[in-house]
C-alpha cells in the first residue's frame, strides 16, 4: 500500500506517467518470481523432510498405471465374489446415509443455537458450540475408530459410530456457515412483529437455509462413502474391510472389483444428489 502511494507521488515529479505503469508491471513481475521461488524452496525443504523424490514419483506413475491395469482388472474368477462385494458396498452406503442423517439432526440443533444470525444471544454458548464442532471435526478419524474399537469391538455399529462422530463435526461447521450467511432482513422483521425465538427459527431461519442444508447433507453422504472405506479398514467392516482382505492376500483382481463397484456407487449417488439439488433451488 505504502509502496504504491510512493510510486503515485513520485510520478508527477518524474513528469512521466509511463514510469508509474512500468514500475507497476515490474513489481508484479518481481512478486510473481518471488512467489515461484518461495514455492520451489518450500517444495525442496518438504521433499528433504519426508524423503520424497519427485523424479522417482513422476517416473513411476506410468509403470504404476500399467501394473494397475494388469493386476487390478476384475477377472471372471473374482466375479464369484461379486455378491459379497455388492452387499458390503450397499451396507457401507447405508451406513454413510445413516451417519449423515443422525449427524444432521444433532448438527442442526447445535448450529441453530450457535449461529450468529438466529443463535442464542448469550455469546459464550455460541463460542462453546463452535469449539465443540471444531474439536470433533479435527480429531483424526483413526483416533475415533481405534477408540471405539476398544469398547464396541469389531462390528458394523463401531464403524457407524466413528463415521457419525467425524460427520457430526464437519456437518455442524457447514450448517453454522449456512446459518451465518442467511439474510437478517426477514429475521429482523419477525422480531419487530413480536415473534418468539422458536417462531423466528421455524418461520425464517430454517426455510431460508433449507436448500443449502440439504445440499450439504447430500455432499456429506458422498464424502462419507469414501471416509467409510478408511474406517472400514480400521474397524473391519464394510467395503474397506473387503478391500483389505483381498489386498493383503494378494488377490488384486477382487480388490479391483471393489474399486470398480465403489466407482459406480459413488457416481450414481453423485448423479442422484445432483438431480435432487437442482430441484431444490
Amino acid at each position, binding site marked *: 500500500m505504502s509502496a504504491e502511494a510512493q510510486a503515485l507521488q513520485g510520478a508527477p515529479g518524474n513528469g512521466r506517467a509511463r514510469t508509474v505503469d512500468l514500475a507497476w508491471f515490474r513489481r508484479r513481475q518481481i512478486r510473481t518470481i518471488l512467489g515461484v521461488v518461495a514455492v520451489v524452496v518450500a517444495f525442496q525443504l518438504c521433499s528433504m523432510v*519426508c524423503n520424497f523424490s519427485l523424479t522417482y514419483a513422476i517416473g513411476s506413475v506410468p509403470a504404476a498405471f500399467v501394473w494397475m491395469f494388469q493386476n487390478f482388472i476384475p477377472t471372471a474368477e473374482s466375479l464369484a465374489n461379486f455378491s459379497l462385494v455388492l452387499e458390503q458396498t450397499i451396507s457401507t452406503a*447405508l451406513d454413510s446415509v445413516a451417519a449423515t442423517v443422525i449427524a444432521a439432526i444433532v448438527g442442526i440443533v447445535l448450529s441453530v443455537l450457535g449461529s450468529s444470525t438466529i443463535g442464542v444471544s448469550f455469546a459464550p454458548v455460541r463460542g462453546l458450540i463452535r469449539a465443540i464442532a471444531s474439536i470433533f471435526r479435527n480429531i483424526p478419524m*483413526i483416533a475415533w475408530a481405534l477408540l471405539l474399537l*476398544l469398547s464396541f469391538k469389531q462390528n458394523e455399529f463401531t464403524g457407524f459410530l466413528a463415521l457419525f462422530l467425524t460427520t457430526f463435526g464437519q456437518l455442524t461447521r457447514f450448517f453454522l456457515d449456512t446459518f451465518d450467511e442467511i439474510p437478517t432482513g426477514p429475521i429482523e422483521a419477525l422480531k419487530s412483529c413480536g415473534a418468539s425465538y422458536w417462531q423466528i427459527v421455524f418461520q425464517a431461519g430454517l426455510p431460508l437455509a433449507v436448500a443449502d442444508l*440439504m445440499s450439504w447433507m447430500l455432499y456429506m453422504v458422498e464424502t462419507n462413502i469414501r471416509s467409510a472405506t478408511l474406517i472400514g*479398514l480400521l474397524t473391519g467392516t464394510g467395503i474397506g474391510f473387503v478391500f483389505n482382505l483381498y489386498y493383503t492376500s494378494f488377490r488384486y483382481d477382487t480388490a479391483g472389483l471393489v474399486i470398480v463397484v465403489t466407482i459406480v456407487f459413488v457416481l450414481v449417488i453423485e448423479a442422484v444428489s445432483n438431480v435432487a439439488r437442482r430441484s431444490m*433451488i
Partner: protein
Amino acid sequence: MTSVTLSERTAAVLERDFAGRIRVTGRAGRNISVQLTLIVLVVLTFVTFARMGYGTVDLIQAARQALADFGAMMLQPALDRPLGAGHFTWATVMESMLITIAVTALCTVISAIVSFFLALAASENLSSSAVSNVVKGIVAIIRSIPTILWVLVFTVAIGLGSEAAVLGISFHSIAYLTKSYSESFEEIDEGVIEALRASGASFWQIVFQAIVPATITKLLSWTFIRLEINFTNAVAVGAFAGAGGIGFQLYQAGSRYYNLHEVGVIVYACLVAAFVLEYVSVQLRKKYILND
C-alpha cells in the same frame, strides 16, 4: 446441454434466492423435492439400523467404557509414566508431525500445478466441449475412488514410502481441484477472452493475461481449502503408506500399545496443527481477497 441467451429485461424478472442464484423450480416443486429427499434419507436410515450388525457387546456398557476412554484420551494426555508408557518422546511426535505437514504441502503444490493445466482443458470456454467432457469424466472417476485406496494401490505398485503417500493423496486432490478450478474458469466473462482472441493473443497469453488475474483469488482460496483436507488425509493414510508421519504413530499408539493417554497427546498435536493450518489459511485467504 442447451444454452439460451436471455434479454436483460427477461433476466431481471427471474426469481432468485437470497444468494442470487436463479430459481429453477417453483415453490411447490421445491417443497416436494425437499420433503421427498428427507423421506428417502430417513427411510434409508431406518433400513440401516434394522439390518446393522451390533456385535455381541452390551451397548450401554460399551458406551460407558467409550466415554471413559474418551475422557482418558482428552483429559489425561501423557507420554511418560505412570499414565503413558514411554513409547514415544516429544521429539518423535514433533518429527512425525513435521513429516505429515511436509507430505501435506507436497501434495498441495503438486496437485495445484497439475490441476491448473487439467482445468484449462476441462473448461468449456477454453477448450473444445469434447475435450472438456473427456477430462471431466476422467476426473469424476478419479474423484470417486477413496484416497486410501489410491494410496494402497500405489504402495503395491511402486513400493512403500513417501512417494506412494504423496501420489495417492495427490490423485484425489488433483481431481477435486481440477473440478473447482475449471468451475472458476468457466465463470469468466466470455467477452474478455473474445477481445484478446480478436486482437491476436495466443492461447497462453489469454491464460496468463486474462484467466489467471481474473481467477487467482478463487484458485488460491480453493487451494487453501484443499490444504486443510490434505492434512486430514495425510494423517489418515499415514498408518498404511509406510511414509511415517503422525498417522503412523497414532495407529501404533492405538492399535499396538493400546495406550489412550499417548493417543491423547498425538490427538492434541493433530488438533494444534489443524488449528494453525486453518488460521493461516483463513488469514491468507483474507489477505489475498482484500488485496484484490
